């Protein structure tokens, strides 16, 4: 009996096919209230008035939570990594994206909650909105964030994430050809089939049981504890079974505000987002703007790369500085490029905040670098397989930030694809391996970048 490597049945498979898997929305507790949010109807505005008095008087309304109810209003998901906080749990002075939550109503049923949301008096003074990241640093761009229009808190309070390696000017001087292109993947929605949902139950012990669809129980528990300013043992997160996440359910989007409503009402509160809220108000994969110039030789070596990346963070930072840093670490893709000059910016716009999504930070750069490499091959008139195999990272090659690759498989995976689609390769390419560079695969410009492999 071997368990590893075996096609064993899915542990939760029978529960799935009998409809018995319990997601948050399937949990049943007595006396539960339903929650609905008041959200910003505009992209950018000052909040000049917020009055819940009329809504509170509606029969069946038990609690309305606003910024005034939050012990620690502004908390950053990545404060532990030195990334400061910028986003209030509920909007206070201004709203910076359409759909930003301002208040949460807990009522006997969803219809009553919706009626109360409509009865909240909200006064806004609309402000100009910023959407094009390329124009965010223009002199006439509206300033939309307290830090300015792009993130200024990388190490040493730099406003740019930089990678520098080798001698970029020399590489561009020595190149036979320099190929430049611009790559712009779109924002997309995570679209988990299970919408964001939380159910918070105040327990007799004064603890809160938080049924959560988070992808990260302890991470989300930390976020709730921070906003509520309580120790972890006041909270019990229940979850671990999630109806799809793809990164969007790292946001802890519903748990904290629902907890505040449960505390204020003394009743269990469920907040289940509508599909429309998922599509229009939940965070998205970021749109990116990437420009690449590769200095190449006529026989297909990539000597150097200059890259500029603008990452559309939306209205707040969330995980974007982390995502851009990861992006920068992988901007050479599957290749070894000895001379690098990378500048990246996290740019704020009046879009819903962007967040982690499957391949965070790298999906974008894989698109840009791979399409660019295909373009380079086309400009040089070289087979795109051969150009890739030649420049592919190999054992002991070093990454953009100087780390040796221990077990790269770029060569074997490319060869497997060539084989699968029946693409003919010359013998010297067909027999390539991932082993350390030597001979013709170790030209002068790559000698200095080969590092030590420490297993």
């Amino acid at each position, binding site marked *: 009996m071997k368990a590893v490597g075996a096609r064993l049945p899915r542990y939760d498979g029978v529960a799935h096919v009998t409809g018995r898997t319990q997601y948050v929305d399937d949990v049943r507790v007595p006396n539960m209230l339903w929650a609905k949010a008041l959200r910003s109807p505009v992209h950018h505005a000052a909040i000049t008035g917020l009055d819940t008095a009329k809504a509170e008087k509606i029969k069946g309304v038990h609690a309305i939570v606003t910024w005034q109810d939050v012990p620690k209003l502004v908390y950053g998901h990545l404060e532990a990594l030195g990334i400061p906080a910028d986003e209030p749990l509920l909007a206070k002075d201004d709203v910076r994206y359409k759909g930003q939550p301002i208040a949460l109503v807990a009522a006997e049923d969803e219809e009553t909650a919706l009626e109360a949301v409509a009865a909240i008096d909200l006064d806004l003074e609309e402000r100009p909105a910023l959407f094009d990241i390329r124009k965010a640093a223009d002199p006439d761009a509206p300033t939309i964030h307290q830090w300015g229009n792009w993130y200024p808190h990388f190490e040493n309070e730099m406003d740019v994430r930089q990678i520098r390696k080798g001698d970029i000017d020399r590489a561009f001087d020595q190149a036979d050809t320099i190929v430049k292109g611009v790559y712009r993947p779109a924002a997309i929605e995570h679209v988990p*089939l*299970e919408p964001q949902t939380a159910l918070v139950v105040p327990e007799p012990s004064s603890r809160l049981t938080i049924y959560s669809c988070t992808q990260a129980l302890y991470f989300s528990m930390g976020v709730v504890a921070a906003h509520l300013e309580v120790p972890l043992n006041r909270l019990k997160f229940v979850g671990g079974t999630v109806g799809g996440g793809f990164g969007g359910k790292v946001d802890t989007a519903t748990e904290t505000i629902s907890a505040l409503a449960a505390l204020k009402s003394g009743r269990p509160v469920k907040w289940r987002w509508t599909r*429309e809220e998922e599509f229009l108000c939940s965070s998205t994969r970021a749109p990116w703007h990437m420009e690449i110039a590769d200095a190449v030789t006529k026989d297909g070596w990539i000597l150097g790369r200059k890259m500029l990346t603008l990452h559309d963070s939306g209205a707040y930072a969330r995980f974007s500085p982390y995502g851009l840093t990861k992006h920068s670490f992988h901007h050479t893709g599957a290749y070894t490029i000895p001379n690098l000059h990378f500048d990246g910016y996290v740019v704020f716009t009046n879009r819903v905040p962007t967040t982690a999504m499957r391949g965070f930070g790298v999906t974008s750069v894989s698109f840009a670098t791979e399409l660019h490499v295909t373009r380079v091959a086309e400009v040089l008139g070289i087979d795109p397989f051969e150009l890739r195999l030649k420049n592919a990272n190999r054992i002991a090659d070093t990454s953009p930030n100087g780390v040796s690759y221990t077990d790269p498989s770029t060569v074997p995976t490319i060869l497997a694809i060539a084989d699968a689609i029946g693409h003919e390769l010359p013998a010297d390419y067909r027999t390539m391996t991932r082993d350390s560079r030597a001979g013709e695969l170790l030209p002068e410009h790559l000698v200095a970048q080969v590092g030590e492999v420490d297993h």
Partner: protein
Amino acid sequence: MPSLTVNGVAVEVESAGLHTLLHVLREELGITSPKAGCQQGGCGACTVLVDGEPRRSCLIPVAAVDGASITTVEGLGTPERLSVVQAAFHERYGSQCGFCTPGFLLATYALLERSPRAGRAEIEEALAGHVCRCTGYVKIIEAVEAALRGEVAAGTEPTEAVTA
């Protein structure tokens, strides 16, 4: 006051007639396999059988199906006695996060009843309104084809669904 037969059991509905069948099943009757995936008729996670036909329970006002027989996944089989469709989805890994699975199962069950020799195009058409974001479409189609061919591996005891 509408009455329904749900998985073979007669029930009187207390919710207002304009509430959706989905709401009645989940919130009034506590039958949670139909999911509120979109409540717009767009995802298929709430699909149930209404008199044997797959329908989006989020689009149906309960008053419109007074007297109907409703089947949910709870009526197809149990962990001990999986129906053919359930066994096929389990054995062929036709389920990842599982949230879309009940809807896919019922649409597939109806397809098997209606068209036991359905080909690939007919399978795709029958499941066209069901979203699997994970997206397990490849293995879902394999599971449906396995169910159509009656390939249900040992270890499960296939049973016919309760549709009365």
